[in-house]
């Protein structure tokens, strides 16, 4: 087990290097340049060229990459020339916000979707199953900007029960911040419910077909024991894997929700950095997301190994 974890952790390093190289190269292809972004569309090409030379943007890419890498790994994340803000507090602040929102959403999604999925699986092909499957699937396909706007119009504008932005005033305590996050978390729940409940249902159905379940029932085990002791544990395997995969999106991919609710999260930070050629922020942000993504997948795999002894033995 420890060997599995160690090996995966070691593998993260070359992956991160590859990702950082990829981002650096891709941002070369992005239209525009740093000088133009800072000075705006009305500056002359000469002025832009002068600023670019000053910022060292026109040096060869390998040179710049190595310089950046050297700074980055020693902890010097530098300051963005475009926004004049330090990169680390910006990225870490956005990360904190995104984690809070993702956490808020997951705390509700995980128990709810597992519950719905297992219930649907247990009552396969029944009315409850069909109802749960259809409704969760329908909610999944609604784009966040549609559900988000509808929720805002109903709850924030018309009823005025909840705030229209997701960012609590500065200095608010945790409870207030979570209150502000109720509305933006709902579109996320809608989307994730479909995926995770479905996985839980599939896992349940598969397990129920196994002979040992029939043995357990015939043995006389109470139904509750069968479900909690055997079915649940096995149905969790595919479910946990899916959740691990979704974490990456929940932290770094919520551009639409963050835009609509005015929430300064990591997704929006990355998109803005890409649009404005802010390579320092882009690199730092993407690598943070990559690390978290790999860690969450690793955790999911560890949990699966804990749930399923066969996986442990193979490893």
């Amino acid at each position, binding site marked *: 087990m420890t060997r599995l974890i160690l090996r995966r952790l070691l593998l993260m390093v070359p992956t991160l290097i590859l990702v950082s190289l990829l981002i650096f190269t891709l941002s070369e292809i992005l239209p525009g340049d740093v000088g133009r972004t800072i000075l705006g*569309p009305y500056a002359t*090409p000469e002025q832009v060229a002068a600023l670019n030379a000053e910022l060292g943007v026109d040096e060869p890419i390998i040179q710049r990459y190595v310089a950046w890498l050297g700074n980055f790994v020693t902890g010097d994340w530098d300051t963005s020339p475009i926004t004049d803000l330090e990169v680390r507090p910006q990225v870490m602040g956005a990360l904190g916000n995104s984690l809070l929102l993702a956490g808020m959403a997951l705390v509700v999604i995980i128990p709810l979707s597992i519950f719905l999925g297992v219930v649907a699986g247990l009552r396969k092909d029944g009315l409850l199953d069909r109802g749960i499957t259809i409704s969760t699937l329908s909610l999944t396909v609604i784009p966040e900007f549609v559900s988000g706007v509808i929720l805002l119009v109903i709850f924030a504008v018309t009823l005025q029960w909840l705030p229209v932005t997701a*960012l609590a005033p500065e200095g608010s305590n945790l409870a207030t911040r979570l209150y502000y996050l109720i509305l933006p978390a709902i579109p996320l729940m809608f989307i994730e419910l479909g995926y995770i409940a479905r996985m839980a249902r599939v896992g349940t159905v598969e397990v129920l077909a196994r002979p040992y379940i029939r043995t357990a029932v015939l043995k006389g085990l109470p139904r509750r024991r069968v479900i909690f002791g055997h079915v649940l544990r096995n149905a969790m395997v595919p479910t946990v894997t899916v959740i691990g995969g979704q974490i990456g999106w929940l932290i770094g991919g919520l551009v639409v929700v963050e835009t*609509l609710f005015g929430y300064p999260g990591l997704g929006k930070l990355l998109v803005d950095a890409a649009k404005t050629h802010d390579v320092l922020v882009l690199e730092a942000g993407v690598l943070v997301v990559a690390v978290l993504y790999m860690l969450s997948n690793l955790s999911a795999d560890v949990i699966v190994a804990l749930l399923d002894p066969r996986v442990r033995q193979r490893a």
Partner: protein
Amino acid sequence: MTDDQYRRDYAHHLIEQVNKGQMTRRQLLVRASIFGFSATAAGSLLAACGGGSTSSSPAASGSAQPAPKAGGTLRIGCRESIAAPDPITMYDQASIVLVQQVCEYLIWVENDMTLRPVLAESWSGDETAKVWTFKLRQGVTFNDGSPLGADDVVATFDRLVDPDSGSAALSALGGILSPGGTKKVDDATVVFNLDKPFAEFPATVSAANYNAVILPRNYGGNFLKSPVGTGPFLLNKYTKKQNATFTKNPNYWQKGLPYLDGLIFKFPADAAAASLAMQAGDIDMQAETPFQGSQALFADPNLQVLEVPSTGLRQVFMNVDKEPFSDKRVRQAVAYCIDRPAIIQALFDGRSTLGNDTLFSSLYPNSPKLPQRAQDYEKAKQLLTDAGHPDGVTITVTPENDLEMPQYAQLIKAQCEPAGIKVNIEMMSYEAYFSGDPAPWLSVPMGITAWSARPTPIQFVNVMMLSDSVWNAPHFANPEYDKLAAQYAATVDEASRMDIATQMATMEQDETLQVLSFFVTQLSARVKNLYDVAGINIFLDLSKAYLA
């Protein structure tokens, strides 16, 4: 002739024009304000005109307005900025309106294009229109305690026209004012020695030149670190892409002002979020409300939407260096396909001023009266045939990917089809449109670019239409037009100006470098109990604003 005599002559001239019916009273106010007459002087000019009376104050609300009340924090929503706010290089809405709360200009531009003295108390030009004397307001201090003096103004303008500064102001003042052209006479007087005669010079050092805020003589370059200015508010905290907070300046030179205790600027990331924020009461006003996506605000009983006709435009330019636009008949053919009222209806529900393919919009005083172009497919087809394209022609239009321009491109495409002009729309991102060397917005065969309003047409002409203009997207190069433009800039006599303007406008319309179907009416949604906000869009003066 002495300066005084000159001013008297000019005053007589304006009055004559009104009495002859060649100028409306409102137009007199605008021209007088540009020339340097104070509001009271302009008022007495009006009184001297035959018949009728009119109030000289541009702001007039129909119903009785509650008395000003001190206190309250105003929450303003505006489009977020890309770069950090820097007065010298700023170019987007958020940066500009943020800086305008802390810093001020010599002259402010009202919604109706009249100039209002702010840090300059009065100004006048000599008869050559090359030497302009500005008297500075006394008793003004920067928020760090230092008094405002001529040295600050000289330093500000030398900085702005310095080619190394990277300021957009360079384009507005290029060829007109050079480094060293601004001179201190005494602590309260500054003289601008221009490179060439320019009758409307005050407009180029007004708020219309949005980088021209007056900064202290020893301005170090980092505005966020030390936001020093003469304005009504002090910058408290600026959190990128989130909000900016301001508190009132207790030592503001206008005693008793500002009424508001503080400001909070929020940056909703798109029109939908902004609209929802207004409806939910999260913000009290928007600097600018884009028409698209804000329909709900018009129907909201708690809000009012201010409509200000402006000379902001959407330039549908055709590059004469690219086929098939080298032949002006093709360009004219495109113009004759356009059903302008229909476009205004579709894009803005009728809220716009009709345009006639010339920068001399009907909104300007003394604008030339040319026959209004309208949709005429017969003419368009004939022009195409004459130009050697009897079977039609295929063109590509590249709209700026912002606001309503993509829809405008769609409408153009639909309206050109019946004449046999097949239009392909090439979409690119906003960033891509403005970057590169040459950037697409200055080099594609046909594009649509948004331009913000300017109080005088020459400010458009100088940067767009001359052979050496820096932002000449249609690549128009006509020595005759250049000569007329130089004459127009230098001439003070109204009748001659009108004459030259008519020649220029006729040439523009004939050559059809760009289709200008409309001039944008700016919108701004506000709560009903907010009063006396001066300006709209990138002009925001809250010194007298209050919540009642």
